[in-house]
């Protein structure tokens, strides 16, 4: 029997600052844990499942995190599939809770990517996979793997740079409504198109920002969550997927979201038409476009028209990234946890100008890795109790 409808998110916290040169990543992580526990009305001693991932976490990373927090959980999961990891951690936590392996799962992230001046999109590409030798000689920064997907999308469907720019403009408009967002000044299409080209066809303003940050999410049974401080947000469906070159020539515009989304919708017994809002990993504008198509919010090739018509803005067919996303609010290296947090905040309600009114069902989708090379996808569908 699936865990759909039996597990809930009971606590959340997003680190408020985007610049924390006086903090360590562990410290940010622990402060987020404290605030999420307080949000839920739980204490550290209630936590018996620990989940997390960071860009620097090594083989003993989860053990070190438990040591830092001075806790002795009975379930550990440090699976790292890139920036989407935390979306998948919610599914892993739900499965663990549903099978009695833990009761209160704490999912954590913390990073000082900005104050470390980490070049995420245009820096080192020395991936530790056995195929890296076939990539490393050619100078392929992360952004170029996304740019090559954008080129295919333009070629196959006639998608324009203006349409990609509309994603950045819409996301910035949302960020202007979020007092914690790193970039709040509204931008125009022209601002995006006139910003310098980083990897054709992606301009500077097609790229996510780099921030410090962290987050925490608490997952428990729906039954237990109903006794806690916040209204439970119920896990309805989850899915994971990997997408790679498959020895040959797969369609680069069909990403992992297709597989993970189909699984999540099937588990939830829902369709894209049921979803009131989405939080979508926006490492680059193209990531949002192909994710919308692969999750079934529009047909392949129609993503450009969807965003051009205001489909992802507040009041649109599917409001996306009301917090300002990674493009404008918070991208501290691995954004997945913030996708979950904003989806939960929207379903709890009361967000003022950026609130999607009457939101009942939200979808979070994370993409991790190198889009046109190899990447992961994780989809999570949540609802009010």
């Amino acid at each position, binding site marked *: 029997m699936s865990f759909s409808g039996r597990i809930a998110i009971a606590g959340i916290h997003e680190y408020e600052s985007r610049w924390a040169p006086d903090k360590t990543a562990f410290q940010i992580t622990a402060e987020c844990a404290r605030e999420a526990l307080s949000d839920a009305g739980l204490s550290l001693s209630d936590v018996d499942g620990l989940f997390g991932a960071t860009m620097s976490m090594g083989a003993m990373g989860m053990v070190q995190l438990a040591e830092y927090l001075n806790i002795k959980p009975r379930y550990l999961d440090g699976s790292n599939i890139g920036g989407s990891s935390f979306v998948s951690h919610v599914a892993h936590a739900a499965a663990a809770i549903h099978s009695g392996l833990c009761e209160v799962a704490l999912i954590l992230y913390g990073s000082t990517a900005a104050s470390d001046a980490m070049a995420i999109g245009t820096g080192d590409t020395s991936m530790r996979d*056995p195929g890296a030798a076939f990539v490393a000689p*050619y*100078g392929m920064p992360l952004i170029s793997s996304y740019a090559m997907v954008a*080129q295919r999308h333009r070629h196959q469907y006639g998608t324009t740079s203006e349409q990609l720019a509309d994603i950045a403009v819409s996301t910035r408009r949302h960020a202007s409504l979020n007092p914690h967002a790193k970039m709040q000044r509204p931008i125009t299409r022209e601002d995006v198109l006139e910003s310098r080209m980083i990897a054709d*066809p992606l301009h500077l303003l097609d790229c996510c920002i780099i921030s410090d940050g962290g987050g925490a999410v608490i997952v428990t049974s729906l039954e237990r969550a109903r006794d806690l401080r916040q209204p439970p947000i119920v896990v309805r469906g989850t899915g994971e997927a990997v997408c790679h070159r498959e020895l*040959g*020539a797969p369609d680069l515009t069909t990403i992992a979201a297709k597989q993970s989304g189909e699984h999540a919708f099937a588990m939830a017994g829902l369709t894209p038409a049921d979803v009131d809002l989405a939080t979508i990993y926006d490492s680059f504008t193209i990531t949002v476009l192909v994710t919308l198509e692969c999750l079934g919010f529009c047909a392949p090739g129609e993503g450009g028209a969807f965003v051009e018509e205001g489909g992802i803005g507040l009041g649109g067919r599917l409001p996306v990234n009301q917090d300002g996303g990674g493009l404008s609010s918070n991208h501290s290296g691995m954004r997945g946890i913030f996708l979950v947090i904003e989806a939960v905040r929207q379903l709890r309600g009361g967000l003022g100008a950026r609130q999607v009114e009457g939101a009942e069902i939200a979808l979070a989708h994370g993409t991790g890795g190198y889009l046109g090379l190899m990447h992961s996808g994780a989809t999570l569908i949540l609802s009010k109790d």
Partner: protein
Amino acid sequence: MSSKRDEPKPAAGPKAIEYGPPAVDWETRAYWEGAGRGELVLQRCRDCGVVQHRPRGLCVTCLSDGIEHFVASGRGRVHTWSVVRQNQMPAFREAVPYVVAYVELEEGPQILANVVDCDPDSVSIGMPVVVEFVKTGRDLGVPRFVPA
């Protein structure tokens, strides 16, 4: 091959990419040694006939050990591409702008490489290209492509 000078020349346009020796293991040695001889070496499975790239110690379609190597035509077309205009990695910082592309080979597989000897803005999807090789050290080489 690339540069004759150690001094960067900021005003004189991009430096050529300097290819270091590729990371070689026993599964991939035939590929990189082939490139050192000026040959693009691919794998074919004797049992199921699949052409696979990147090279592996077994066929990941039928899991047979019966892998053989053959010399590919070196001809293909650009499947997709980008011009890298910013890269903080020291080996590439002064080489921008340069083209990275997936090239779809006549034999089927796509391989990632640079496309050189042309204006980066002249590259397009479907453009015919042909392989060339840069020697790296005594026995090894790195394939890349030029307009056909």
